[in-house]
């Protein structure tokens, strides 16, 4: 059956893109330091030599030129830089697959993977509920605006447009200023009060939820705008289509008609989810910085400030992996929702 084949091909292609993306991200992370001008180890050695000659209080003070040269050679060997590039690359891949991403510089001697493992749950706890809730509210409001039209639509549609175009982190500033600073309802930042240690006690959970509201709203609300605009135009299109006119002439209730057009319009909205997922995630990274929320975004920000390259690379890989997994889950969801794909997979007739 040509249909089955094309859907299989569709899935294989998707997976091929994800695998390729993953390897290209890995290669990029490995390649970047090699492409930059200068020799970081030579620089480090020269700095030690300079510190020594100045007789400064550096721990390396007093090293002779020969000793520094030895040190340089030792480092080159230690980091495997004397091996051919392809071997270096393979070693790097092996390390990545064994979750050995090196040691963080700013949080020495913590492993990069441990820093990321601590940050990732916070980011996901923000991202996933915000996307689910935002998607539902956005699609509902969009459909409502298209259905009600008139004054309701005329007021809310420009609002949707504004919401969808606001930078997430700027909206975060506005929320912190109004609800946090002016009204004092919510804390200005952080994920929990610094006086508490993370635990599963009721007090801590309530405190964390209190801190959670503003970051959550600043990721969710801009996302509602984008979803609502999409849903509104899809429903408008459905309402004007031939089957809807036929329905109307048969005297069906509006509610019934809306539920039909909603089901038709939801499909493209699910297709668009991966794009929104990526942009919401990207926006969230900067939003976390505004709230000093301890997720991947803040971690990456700290790494950029401290020029902690292993952590920057690790953070990048973590973001790529989360995005790929997110897209993959959404693809499966899409296949499940779209009857054409579902039928070919379940073998229903």
């Amino acid at each position: 059956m040509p249909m089955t084949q094309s859907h299989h091909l569709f899935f294989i292609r998707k997976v091929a893109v994800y695998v390729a993306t993953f390897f290209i991200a890995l290669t990029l992370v490995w390649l970047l330091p090699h492409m930059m001008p200068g020799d970081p180890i030579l620089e480090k050695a020269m700095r030690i030599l300079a510190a020594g000659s100045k007789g400064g209080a550096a721990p390396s003070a007093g090293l002779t030129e020969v000793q520094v040269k030895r040190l340089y050679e030792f480092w080159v060997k230690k980091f495997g830089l004397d091996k051919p590039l392809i071997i270096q690359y393979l070693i790097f891949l092996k390390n990545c697959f064994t979750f050995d991403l090196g040691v963080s510089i700013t949080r020495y001697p913590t492993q990069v993977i441990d820093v990321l493992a601590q940050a990732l749950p916070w980011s996901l706890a923000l991202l996933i509920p915000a996307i689910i809730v935002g998607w539902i509210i956005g699609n509902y409001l969009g459909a409502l605006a298209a259905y009600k039209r008139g004054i309701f639509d005329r007021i809310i549609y420009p609002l949707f447009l504004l919401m969808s175009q606001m930078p997430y982190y700027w909206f975060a500033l506005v929320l912190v200023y109004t609800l946090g600073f002016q009204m004092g309802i919510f804390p200005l930042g952080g994920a929990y009060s610094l006086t508490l240690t993370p635990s599963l006690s009721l007090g801590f959970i309530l405190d964390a939820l209190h801190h959670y509201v503003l970051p959550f709203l600043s990721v969710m609300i801009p996302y509602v705008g984008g979803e609502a605009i999409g849903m509104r135009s899809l429903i408008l299109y459905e309402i004007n289509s031939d089957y809807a006119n036929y329905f109307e002439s048969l005297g069906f209730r509006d509610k019934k008609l809306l539920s039909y057009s909603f089901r038709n319009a939801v499909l493209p909205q699910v297709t668009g989810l991966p794009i929104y997922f990526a942009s919401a995630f990207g926006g969230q990274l900067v939003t976390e910085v505004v709230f000093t929320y301890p997720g991947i975004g803040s971690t990456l920000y700290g790494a950029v400030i401290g020029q902690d390259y292993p952590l920057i690379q690790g953070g990048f890989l973590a973001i790529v992996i989360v995005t790929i997994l997110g897209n993959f889950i959404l693809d499966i969801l899409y296949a499940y929702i779209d009857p054409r794909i579902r039928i070919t997979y379940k073998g229903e007739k």
Partner: protein
Amino acid sequence: MDLKALIKRSPKLLVGLCIFTFFVLFAILGPFLYPVDPKKPQFESLAPPSIKHPLGTDILGRDLLAQLIWGTGYSLKIGIMAALISLAIGIMVGGIGGYFGGMIDEILNLTSNVVLTIPTIAFLIVVAAYFRTRSEWTVILLISSTAWAGMARSIRSQVLSLKTREFIDLAKLSNLSRVRILFFEVLPNMLSYIVMYLALSVAGAIGSEAGLSAIGLGPTEIVSLGILLRWAIVWEAVRYGAWWWFLPVGLTITLITLSLLLINDGLDQIYNPRARRS
């Protein structure tokens, strides 16, 4: 079709063009009408908006209206340049892939999809972190290095549908070369589409610049809208209650990208009969 008729058919286009033109004029004429140095700390610190400083001053005593004028100018420049470069790459990749098909298309399409899958801001952060200093052109090229992919994908799908039309068969019969057909027959027929997409890409590039700058990896020598937001975040404008420090900047970014979205929508209404119906 003249401009008047176009605008009559889509009020959205008119609104979008008005807002966008306003900010372009604001950036071009601003420095002459309001000749204050945006980077020189020379006034009272954290002064709220007044007649002397219409948008107030920041914590270092720099005039915020002057900063907004210059920031808007640089952000528009970065956005427009990055969009034009990604357009050129997108036309090449999408056009050639879509028209030639086969293995070339598979490879180019896979490449665009990979670039689309990697979250833009994460890619920009990891690459930009390796540059000690970043000129505006570093940032423009960085942004274009990912932004072309969306363009390529859209152009490819347009080329795929256009290349089956009769006039292309006719061109083939008259023995024109494939490159010639692509660039002189196919592409001119999707000009309206390209202009629409260009508006969206300028908005996207301005957003990317703002995000990258807000995290501290924007251009190092100039003021852009993103850098202004970064200063407001780093100096904790909120904790000083200095709403005038961050509110106008974010509104400017929002309104500029919104106007470009309206231009895109308006053009869509005019050129796409399906969108006009609703």
